[in-house]
């Protein structure tokens, strides 16, 4: 079986599900003949036609809003926002409508839609193309927010997101779109949502992360192993709802936790993880929880973006700080 990249896994999942379920369709800017600017929808229009692979006008509010109408009609729209930097005009639709259509109609109507967007820094893209603002969506009741960190999880989680009966924000870490390959059987098997994925077992400390930062975090864990320190690495994968049990169990074992994310620190999803630990895991904590995050600044243009993004070195620093407490 050929090994594929994360972005190819996204395409593979879309193609599988469109083939299996004619209610599924794709819409967004340049998703048609161009296959999306990252090629996530490559070949889909040829295969499934222009009616189901829809190039929209340049209108992000519309993209989200019409997906809601489609979903209410029983379709399974997968809408693409070209970059997360352009998702903000869609927040109104996601917050005021998608997240609550089922609730407000007491289940009469529902909103099984997926809103996909590439996000995060590190590819030296232009201004407004590199932010990570998943926390905005994680705060909105009624939504799911899912972030894959490997080709296999991209495939399995996207299938799950499309099949989920409620709205899902599916954020794709574009820095690792093509960074690694693995073989991903095209078998239509979804992965579970609402659960963390354990990327590495360990006893000495817990590293919690998601998305592209799994790379630096795993690298840090490897480096720590070289020092004889055994780090557990947890990929949140679904950041809303949060599987706090897995995190709490891990920290109950290790007593130490470093949270790593690209987004700005203040009110990032790391804060929620830390809060859960402070509420429900306080007495297992042997050291202060550390957050290694993007800074509370505007994401700089690309010359300085590597200074902004958490590095393996910063993760290691934090891990060491955590381990100093005895």
């Amino acid at each position: 079986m050929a090994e594929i990249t994360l972005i190819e896994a996204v395409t593979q999942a879309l193609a599988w599900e469109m083939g299996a379920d004619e209610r599924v369709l794709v819409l967004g800017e340049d998703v048609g003949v161009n296959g999306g600017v990252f090629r996530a929808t490559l070949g889909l229009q040829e295969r499934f036609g222009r009616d189901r692979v829809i190039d929209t006008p340049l209108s992000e509010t519309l993209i989200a809003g019409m997906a809601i109408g489609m979903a209410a009609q029983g379709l399974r729209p997968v809408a693409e926002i070209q970059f997360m930097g352009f998702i903000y005009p869609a927040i109104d639709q996601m917050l005021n409508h998608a997240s609550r259509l089922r609730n407000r109609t007491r289940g009469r109507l529902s909103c099984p839609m997926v809103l996909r967007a590439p996000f995060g820094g590190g590819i030296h893209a232009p201004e407004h193309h590199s932010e990570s603002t998943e926390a905005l969506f994680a705060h909105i009741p009624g939504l799911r927010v899912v972030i894959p960190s490997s080709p296999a999880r991209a495939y399995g989680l996207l299938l799950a997101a499309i099949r989920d009966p409620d709205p899902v924000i599916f954020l794709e870490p574009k820095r690792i779109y093509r960074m690694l390959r693995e073989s991903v059987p095209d078998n239509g098997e979804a992965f579970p949502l609402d659960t963390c994925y354990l990327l590495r077992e360990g006893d000495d400390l817990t590293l919690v992360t998601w998305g592209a930062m799994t790379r630096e975090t795993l690298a840090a864990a490897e480096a720590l192993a070289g020092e004889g320190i055994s780090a557990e690495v947890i990929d949140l994968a679904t950041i809303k709802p949060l599987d706090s049990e897995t995190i709490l169990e891990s920290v109950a074992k290790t007593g130490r936790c470093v949270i790593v994310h690209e987004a700005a620190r203040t009110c990032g999803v790391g804060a929620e993880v830390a809060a859960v630990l402070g509420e429900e895991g306080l007495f297992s904590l042997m050291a202060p929880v550390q957050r290694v995050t993007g800074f509370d600044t505007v994401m700089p243009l690309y010359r300085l973006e590597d200074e902004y993004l958490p590095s393996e070195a910063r993760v290691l620093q934090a891990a060491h700080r955590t381990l100093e407490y005895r």
Partner: protein
Amino acid sequence: MKQVAQFAIDYWQYLDSDGRPLDELPGFARDPDEMIAMYRALWSTRLFDRKAIVLQRTGQLGTYASPLGQEAIGVGVGYAMSSGDVLVPGYRDQAAQFVRGVRMTDILLYWGGDERGMDFAVAREDFPISIPVGSHACHAVGIAYALQLRKEPRAAVCTLGDGATSKGDFYESLNAAGVWRLPLVFVVNNNQWAISVRRSAQSAAQTLAQKAIAGGVRGEQVDGNDLVAVRSRLEEALALARAGEGPTLIEALSYRMGDHTTADDARRYRSQAELEAQAGFDPILRMRAWMTSAEYWSDRQEEALHLELSAQVEAAVREYLRMSPQDRQSMFDHLYETLPAAYVSQREELADTAAEAEEPYLKAGTYDG
């Protein structure tokens, strides 16, 4: 320099403000039963409206938006639509919703702070009303797209106000509907006001119908207080929509005879004189005048109708007032299809916490919104 494009906006009217036909009337007007049914619908909305305002004033209903003087738009929309069409309404479209089969009790529940008012027993594909102005236009695009994709001879109707035409989401929707030639009719109730902002402060466009031109969409004006004209133009637009001829924007000219909502006091910003000048254009009086002259309708029938409809309204109100509130845990029951494990403990916490004794009605009218 050469001219490369020309456009024109038409205005439609069948009955003048005294109910005199200006032209040959459309076919449905020759059917007395049909006309009487429409006339009933006007009155049932108005009687409902009067009662709802009383309920609000007496602390038995929350903030409520009255369609007073604009009932012909909703009734016309409702009668032009087929049951298979989909309505995506604003908050002032009770008249259309009632014709579609939404119960008065539902509308009361909604403004009474109870989500069950959005769980319609019929018209189950219709959207509940949209409070964020203009935002529902996008939903209508998605719905119309679904109907078109499935090649169903159905259409969507999206109703909104003059103020809503200033919103970007309305425009994005109009434009997209044009691109895909969707089976979608936008109906703008131009009641001349968006709370305290007059039509002229909302846009320099001399008509709102011409907004359609920006999307390459048909646009026209209709006298919104002329029920015959509203229904007729909607039927035409819906027929075109279902026949694959694409969307239409219809600006229905009317006037908001009441306050914006029960939380508003329009005397703060508009003159009594302006209001009085509009009194002669009432859509119900106009229909009655014509129906009387056509010998479809008598004063005796009028009296009976009021008695009958008032009883209906009272029954709905009784049902509304009798309904006990939902369980507090209900706020988790429809959040997701299956409540994620992460929130189960919150649901339990909620069930455990006894809130202080609760007063389910509106606290003093501290705002206008």
